[in-house]
């Protein structure tokens, strides 16, 4: 092995952690793959890198999550901030770039399946919208037959998306005034699952309830959710 080969070998060795994490450029990944195929010793060391990666993920996953106090305090502080329009430059393009840039091929593979599932669920929501007549009249309302975030049990539920401009105080006031409880979400499209009654309402009663809630200014979208 000449000096150039040795330099290349050490450069490749330095890249192994990023190769294992799937964050190398396609060109570098190809270089590493070629080196691994030619050098069994390097391939053994790569196995060690993969072990480190697995255990680092496991270690971090055992750290748990922050308590609900953090979110409550944060949004209380934000609500206390002087009123201004949030201007986060997270454009759709930036978010898409972030999504793909921040994910390794292995994560992307999983995400592709998740995306397919999300599309199916979304299709389920859309497909489940039923325009119905009630009591022979022309009252139209929406109802989802989707199982998005659905859990069995008593109570009546709706899927809600809040207006983007609605602030925390408005939403809190809306939830309190209508005795609603968020029980799931946010799901794809910013949808939250909300318990609108602790008992199983009759369909007409549920439709009336949803129509009343729909009039509130914080609501961007609402649909009753059936089991």
């Amino acid at each position: 092995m000449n000096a150039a080969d040795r330099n290349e070998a050490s450069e490749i060795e330095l890249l192994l952690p990023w190769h294992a994490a799937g964050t190398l450029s396609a060109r570098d990944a190809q270089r590493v793959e070629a080196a691994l195929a030619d050098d069994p010793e390097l391939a053994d060391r790569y196995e060690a890198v993969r072990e480190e990666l697995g255990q680092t993920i496991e270690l971090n996953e055992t750290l748990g999550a922050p308590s609900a106090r953090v979110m409550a305090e944060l949004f209380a502080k934000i609500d206390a901030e002087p009123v201004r329009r949030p201007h986060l430059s997270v454009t759709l393009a930036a978010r898409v770039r972030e999504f793909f840039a921040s994910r390794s091929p292995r994560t992307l593979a999983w995400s592709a399946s998740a995306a397919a599932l999300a599309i199916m669920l979304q299709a389920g929501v859309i497909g489940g919208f039923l325009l119905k007549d009630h009591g022979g009249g022309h009252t139209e309302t929406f109802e989802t037959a989707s199982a998005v975030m659905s859990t069995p049990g008593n109570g009546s539920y709706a899927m809600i998306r809040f207006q983007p401009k609605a602030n925390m105080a408005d939403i809190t006031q809306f939830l309190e005034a209508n005795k609603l409880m968020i029980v799931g979400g946010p799901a794809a499209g910013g949808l939250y699952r909300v318990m609108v009654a602790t008992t199983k309402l009759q369909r007409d009663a549920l439709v009336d309830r949803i129509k009343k809630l729909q009039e509130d200014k914080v609501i961007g979208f609402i649909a009753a959710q059936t089991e």
Partner: protein
Amino acid sequence: MQVLFARHHVRVYRFVLRLVRNEATAEDLISEVFLDVWRQAQKFEGRSAVSTWILSMARFKALSSLRRRTEDELDDETAGTIEDPEDNPETALAKKDKGAALRQCLEKLSAEHREIVDLVYYHEKSVAEVSSIVGIPEATVKTRMFYARKKLSELLKEHGIDRGWP
């Protein structure tokens, strides 16, 4: 903001917790981080991933918090994190379980080494992104990761596990 918080807060919390090693402090810090995200959102130019930007702020806050602690506190904490391999029954078990031994050794790395290992392996940050978060050249990112791994191998050797490298 809620979506941003929901998407990133757990990973940011874990990143900070690994640096400050105190849950209450980590919670306070991520609250400060996301408040700054809210306040400085207009300054974000989209040249890096949002998560990289947030992790940079989180790192700065964690290091500032660590600097505020007295030397004594740090000494006590450091002493507390170093376990006696002879006295700890877990260590005996770890010898039989390579994965557990690896996790123990990952905990014993210095803050500088823990940070880079977490960023690369757990937060899936590229060389350029780690360089941006930590504020060091890309070549240094690669060598620092190399030395972190080397130290890990040495610690494993102390646990009786020889990986044959370095």
